């Protein structure tokens, strides 16, 4: 454990407490959106989706559907004109071409699945029947599926309001970025193509809009990561008094980024609940989810790394194109994937020089937005694969070239080539610990040139990665993302009976906020974990906030909770000091009591303090203090804390079938001060396995006309327990130097970021005898076989093992 000036935790923060969330979920008492009891008279919405990737809408015939059994109404895009404003993704600024999207397509469809009409009926079955009866006449337009097709000079332009299909572009270089490539001894370069992924939260999207006519108010229950932003969008786009809108994210069955956008369905159900004066419900089915929910991570990275002959990394150059699909989404806009990928590339190495150009390109495919890790897993994949190639070219072991370049304590604080500051970290320690735990040296010693053992090819891969976490207001402004606030808030309140409640402005989708933030409150107030309740995801309580994505929960909501708790603790100490006739500074809070330091018999219970604060006690409040025992605080970290990790993966490959099995997986990880190690490990496990699945089985595919052809889970293959390895996680704890927030760093995405490069490098190592270069994902069995058959054998020595 890294020595820590802030002293070790001996309280509730840091304990592996089982979660408060679990009991109802285990009993089947969770309340996900579709589980909310439907109010009487609830109507059900089903959307008619475009069957064409790119077409002019000639006509929409809803007559038959409108007559169908149980149908209340059918609407097309024209019906909402002037009533629901189009969603604008970005503000006009250099490098951006903002795009407007109407909630239903009116004249033109731009991806298969884009909603053209909506049927409202008495129940879901009848609404689906009627949706089949809506006839849409299309006049086909040429579709553009890839970034190359979309950027050709004769490419059809998707959006009238733009001058090209490049919706965002940016470039940057450090002073000598070109120079190091002239003076370098060795340059490695390749073009890396990552594939489109469905994000696939197991609970698909859905919402229930309940209107109250008596005061023109609305409650929208929706499966979202950003309830406050959804509420603001409804207010702005539907011209509705924001104070009369309440958005609630109930139990949410996973997010991973795909619920961090405001969707047309949320706006339409809200609008129609008022229009029809009836509750309106919509639940996305899996096919619709695979066609319409934001996807991610389709990049082309052209990357070059410059080295000295001794293996010292001098700099990097990258050209990045990101396929963002038919529309940028609100609030993250067009730049979030392309811009994020570029600034993510300088990782855990000393890399003084860097130049990039990056573009976001619109195509006639489902909109793409943030998916766990955004561009970081792909950036890490490209750089770590090139690291291994440079090592091979320069005669170094992959571990050795990393030791040579990884950041060491004397480099810290380190400002990287794009100006991001790493205040603390354990880059070299994590590397050494992960290598030791994976027995890297032993594996290498036993490894033969042909990589064969027991009829299988065996390889090992290393990845050093960082994770940008807790990005605040400044980061989003720097990135040109204006509709994402960046801060979050917490209101902590001790009730007269001494129990505390915290309203936190984020919402949890499985990350354990209700447990972790309760640990923070209990720790700071000196009360029991069981005496704290955390409530999230409801705009009716607490402060405005940004939401849960981009590994910002622990840092920003955790920081806000800590700061609000500290202010409440201060007031407890003032009241206790007043009663015990000592200075508030001499009061310590623990075990539900306020003690005079060093005088254990002089104490008062926090319950009594709470009673005093609520004027239900013989003692009065100290002069100057007002009633109640609560505080509201926001948090906006001055510097986004950087987590770091080393992943080591061991794989075996069946040379006959190309099937890759992950044999062993080790992560040495540092996310600063750990609030709950159980939850942290869970985040890493889940991220790693999502990463493995995205490399070895998942692929969202479109045919040449733009038809998505993986729209069921029979075609879009998600890894199961039989495909996943056990995972060893080792912790380091380099507290964030931004101690105003408690020293926490984020942990939501690091698992995925490390898994892509670790698996890819392990596969490349196993295929080394074939000289296979891995520069495309996914690595499906047939692509592994092709790599064995079509690569130029290294040194001409190895040949394919007998099948």
């Amino acid at each position: 454990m890294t020595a820590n000036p802030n002293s070790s935790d001996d309280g509730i923060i840091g304990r592996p407490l089982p979660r408060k969330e679990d009991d109802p979920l285990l009993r089947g008492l969770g309340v996900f959106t579709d589980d909310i009891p439907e109010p009487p008279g609830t109507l059900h919405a089903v959307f008619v989706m475009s069957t064409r990737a790119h077409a002019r809408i000639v006509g929409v015939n809803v007559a038959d559907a409108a007559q169908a059994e149980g149908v209340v109404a059918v609407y097309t895009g024209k019906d909402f004109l002037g009533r629901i404003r189009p969603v604008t993704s970005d503000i006009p600024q250099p490098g951006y071409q903002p795009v407007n999207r109407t909630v239903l397509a009116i004249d033109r469809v731009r991806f298969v699945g884009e909603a053209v009409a909506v049927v409202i009926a008495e129940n879901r079955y009848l609404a689906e029947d009627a949706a089949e009866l809506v006839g849409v006449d299309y006049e086909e337009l040429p579709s553009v599926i890839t970034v190359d097709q979309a950027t050709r000079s004769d490419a059809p332009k998707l959006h009238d309001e733009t001058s090209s299909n490049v919706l965002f572009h940016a470039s940057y270089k450090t002073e000598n970025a070109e120079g190091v490539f002239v003076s370098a001894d060795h340059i490695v370069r390749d073009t890396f193509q990552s594939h489109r992924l469905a994000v696939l939260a197991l609970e698909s999207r859905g919402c229930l809009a309940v209107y109250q006519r008596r005061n023109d108010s609305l409650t929208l229950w929706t499966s979202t990561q950003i309830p406050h932003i959804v509420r603001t969008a409804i207010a702005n786009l539907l011209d509705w008094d924001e104070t009369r809108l309440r958005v609630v994210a109930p139990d949410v069955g996973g997010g991973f980024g795909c619920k961090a956008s405001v969707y047309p369905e949320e706006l339409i159900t809200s609008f129609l609940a008022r229009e029809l004066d009836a509750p309106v419900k919509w639940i996305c089915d899996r096919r619709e989810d695979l066609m319409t929910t934001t996807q991610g991570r389709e990049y082309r990275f052209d990357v070059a790394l410059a080295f000295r002959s001794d293996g010292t990394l001098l700099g990097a150059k990258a050209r990045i194109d990101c396929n963002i699909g038919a529309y940028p989404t609100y609030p993250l806009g067009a730049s979030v994937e392309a811009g994020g990928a570029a600034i993510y590339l300088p990782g855990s190495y000393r890399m003084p020089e860097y130049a990039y150009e990056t573009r976001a390109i619109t195509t006639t495919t489902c909109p793409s937005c943030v998916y766990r890790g955004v561009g970081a897993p792909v950036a890490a994949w490209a750089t770590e694969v090139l690291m291994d190639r440079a090592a091979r070219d320069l005669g170094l072991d992959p571990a050795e070239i990393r030791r040579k370049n990884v950041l060491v304590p004397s480099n810290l604080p380190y400002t990287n080539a794009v100006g991001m500051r790493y205040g603390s970290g354990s880059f070299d320690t994590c590397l050494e610990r992960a290598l030791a735990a994976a027995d890297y040296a032993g594996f290498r010693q036993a490894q033969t040139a042909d990589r064969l053992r027991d009829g299988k090819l065996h390889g090992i891969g290393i990845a050093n990665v960082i994770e940008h976490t807790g990005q605040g207001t400044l980061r989003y402004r720097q990135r040109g993302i204006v509709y994402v606030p960046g801060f979050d808030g917490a209101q902590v309140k001790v009730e007269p009976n001494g129990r505390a409640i915290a309203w936190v402005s984020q919402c949890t989708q499985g990350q354990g906020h209700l447990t972790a933030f309760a640990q923070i409150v209990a720790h700071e107030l000196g009360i029991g974990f069981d005496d704290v309740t955390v409530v999230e995801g409801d705009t009716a309580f607490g402060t405005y906030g940004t939401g849960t994505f981009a590994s910002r929960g622990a840092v920003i909501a955790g920081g806000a909770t800590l700061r609000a708790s500290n202010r409440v603790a201060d007031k407890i100490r003032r009241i206790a000091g007043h009663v015990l006739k000592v200075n508030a500074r001499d009061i310590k809070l623990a075990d539900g009591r306020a003690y005079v330091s060093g005088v254990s018999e002089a104490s008062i219970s926090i319950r009594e303090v709470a009673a005093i604060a609520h004027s239900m006690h013989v003692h009065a409040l100290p002069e100057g203090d007002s009633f109640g025992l609560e505080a509201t605080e926001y948090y906006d970290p001055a510097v986004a804390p950087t987590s770091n990790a080393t992943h080591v993966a061991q794989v075996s490959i069946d040379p006959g079938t190309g099937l890759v099995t992950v044999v062993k997986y080790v992560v040495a990880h540092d996310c600063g001060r750990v609030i709950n190690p159980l939850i942290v490990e869970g985040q890493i496990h889940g991220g790693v396995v999502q990463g493995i699945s995205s490399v070895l089985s998942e692929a969202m595919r479109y045919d040449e006309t733009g038809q998505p052809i993986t729209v069921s889970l029979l075609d879009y293959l998600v890894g199961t327990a039989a495909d996943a390895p056990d995972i060893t996680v080792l912790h380091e704890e380099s507290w964030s130097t931004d101690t105003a927030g408690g020293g926490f760093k984020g942990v939501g995405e690091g698992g995925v970021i490390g898994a892509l490069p670790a698996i890819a490098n392990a596969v490349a190592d196993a295929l080394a005898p074939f000289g296979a270069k891995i520069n495309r994902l996914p690595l499906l069995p047939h692509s592994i076989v092709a790599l064995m058959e079509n690569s130029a054998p290294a040194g001409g020595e190895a040949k394919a093992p007998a099948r």
Partner: protein
Amino acid sequence: MPQRHKIELTVNGKKLQRHVEPRLLLCDFLRYELRLTGTHVGCAHGVCGACTVLFNGSTARSCLTFAVQADGAVIETVESLAARGPLSPIQRAFYEHHALQCGFCTPGFLMSTRELLTHHPDPSEETVRMALRGHICRCTGYVNIVRAVRAAARKLREEGLGRDSEP
């Protein structure tokens, strides 16, 4: 209006009689007619396993089963595992091992685990992984689920319980 069919079945120990449309799915019957919303629908095409229930003692996808097919059947859902009392040993093991995150897939995993441990009181890691491969969990990476299932098996063996709980 399509003709409704009378069905008689036992759900979580209670005998019921209902009239249902022939196309009503068992999952929708359980969720919307009986308000047993612990059974979740993750794909509606039989892959993700979230909707798994016990049908005459064996696991079944309630999203691929019509309610009329359950006529005469004994159905057990996640709500049966620990109605009001303490968590069952399997549920407890999931709690202690942090084997759930968002919790959406969990009811299905619990039902399959219950079936597995009925037949295999001491399953190897490999057996657990193979038995649960009909379920998708997007959050946990399965690591803690596998650990929880094996811990639950140990607990059940120690306590001499053949089964997680009796309906």
